[in-house]
């Protein structure tokens, strides 16, 4: 049985549930927001063996029946009342401990997803797999950011260093006038690499590459910029496929959304590996069976480093 921890309203989970129903594979969907109201979890660890159960809706499911876990915890909304915020924080802490400790495959374990919390940390793992990485400056110094902008001939993007507020924006000359704001905290600046975007979903040992043509700075938000976007499933050169698999494995991820760009110089740049990829979005444009790949990976326990 696959245990799914997340909200049915989440497009990825909705799609995964649909495919599991189609394949007649047993699963249990629990929404973490219902924890301590709709379900409870207890587990015990002694001499390396985990024993425990889930109580939900009058039923009891032994954890021994759980063969794999898929999790997508949504952040606590900002307008959540303090009492609920505290309850959800507790739920996340309990689930976190289970997800780290259970011996079954977990997509993805919190400690493996956590490399996405420091993009420059992850960038060094990416570089070690053989991908090119763009020239990057991390600074809270206005003069350093200004110099970097000039050195890169004004072809610079900026984004957060963590996974919070992670939207890519193009830096323009008019931004030079507000660099003093940097003194509050560091920002990541990257040389803009012209080329073609690819999102590669790695599901265990399989890859599902999508080519994206867009004139937006961040194609995911093309409609915000009033820009166009088209996507199609493609095949990657074998070496690039191997690097994607190597990266996902190095990060210990069962599922990853690897963001690549083939530069005009012919090099393959990698920007990040997303541990919570929105695969359903890509699947609807390309027809790739990414959710099935995810189910197979969970059942086979592929990819967990």
């Amino acid at each position: 049985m696959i245990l799914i921890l997340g909200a049915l309203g989440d497009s990825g989970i909705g799609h995964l549930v649909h495919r599991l129903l189609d394949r007649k594979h047993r699963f249990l969907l629990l929404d973490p927001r219902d924890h301590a109201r709709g379900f409870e979890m207890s587990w015990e660890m002694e001499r390396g063996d985990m024993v425990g159960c889930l109580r939900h809706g009058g039923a009891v499911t032994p954890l021994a029946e759980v063969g794999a876990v898929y999790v997508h915890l949504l952040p606590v909304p900002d307008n959540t009342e303090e009492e609920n915020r505290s309850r959800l924080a507790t739920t996340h802490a309990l689930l976190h401990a289970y997800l780290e400790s259970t011996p079954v495959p977990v997509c993805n374990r919190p400690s493996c997803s956590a490399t996405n919390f420091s993009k420059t940390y992850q960038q060094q793992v990416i570089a070690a797999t053989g991908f090119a990485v763009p020239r990057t400056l991390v600074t809270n110094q206005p003069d350093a950011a200004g110099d970097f902008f000039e050195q890169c001939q004004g072809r610079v993007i900026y984004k957060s260093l963590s996974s919070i507020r992670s939207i890519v924006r193009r830096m323009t000359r008019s931004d030079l006038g507000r660099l003093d704001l940097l003194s509050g905290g560091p920002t990541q600046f990257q040389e803009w690499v012209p080329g073609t975007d690819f999102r590669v979903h790695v599901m265990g040992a399989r890859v599902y590459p999508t080519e994206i043509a867009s004139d937006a700075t961040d194609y995911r938000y093309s409609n915000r910029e009033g820009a166009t976007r088209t996507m199609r499933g493609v095949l990657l050169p074998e070496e690039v496929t191997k690097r994607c698999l190597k990266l996902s494995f190095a990060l210990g991820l069962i599922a990853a959304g690897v963001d690549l760009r083939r530069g005009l110089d012919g090099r393959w740049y990698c920007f990040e590996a997303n541990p919570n990829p929105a695969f359903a979005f890509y699947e609807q444009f390309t027809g790739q069976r990414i959710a099935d790949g995810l189910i197979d990976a969970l059942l086979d326990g592929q990819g967990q480093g």
Partner: protein
Amino acid sequence: MVIIFAAPGDGLAADVREKMDEKGRECRVIPPPGPGSSFKFSWELPAPAPARIEWDGQRFPVDKIRGVLVRALPEPPQEISADSDRDYLCIEWHAALLGWLQSVTAAVVNRPKPGRSLRLPNLCAHSEKFRTVGLQLAPVLVTDSVSEARGFFRRCGRSVLVMPACAGRTVRVEDEEALLGGACCLIAVPDGVWRRIHVVDGEAFAEIIGDDGRQLSAGDALPESLARRCCTLVKLLDLDFLELLVVSGNGGDVVLGAEDLPGAVFNNAVSRDGVAGALIRILDAPRRETPQ
């Protein structure tokens, strides 16, 4: 030069700095940067030049840093409010330093990694490594059910440690009626001799502590085999420095807790000196060409 990121008043940071001064070696203690700090930071990767770090008006020659001891990093809150600029800046500083510390060729004690947590119950993920070296992890129950908690208490004997799931102090409970619910982690407490063991650079320093886990008593000669097993465990966990809470009794050596950012509270000078000295051996070692 050695850099220590530490909150003001950190005793171990002060000890290391004092010993470095005695050796005539340069050592600076910097508070973890955060919103409003005077920390100035520029770092480029792939690295064409060393990072630029300034704090309190002083510029640090990053290419001369031999070692970094991280006693504290900017600590993001457990639940992040995306609307809070303060939370956001704290998270960004944390992310920036994690990336930089991964890249520096200097020795970094317990080089920090995103998501690493060795506290119970997460420590259960490493139970195989404990078994390999002949240490046991104490039985643990994670629950939000009072009846499950009380059942565990009865099976364990006469007391458990109770660790709240989120924030809060771990307390010892010796009466099952005192288990009133709330999500928590319960750790079975065996009978035996309690030791707080600090392992650093392949050396173990122990103190016998009171069985309430807090009250400190006399110093201790650590059994050779236990010291060796603790040192091997730390290697398996890919760490340089770890604090373990171990109870030795008829059931063997049982680990009740571990901390890769030790509080480093000592009641005897031998342990205190020993830990600081061993840390300096790591921090003041010749520079490497590539990160560890």
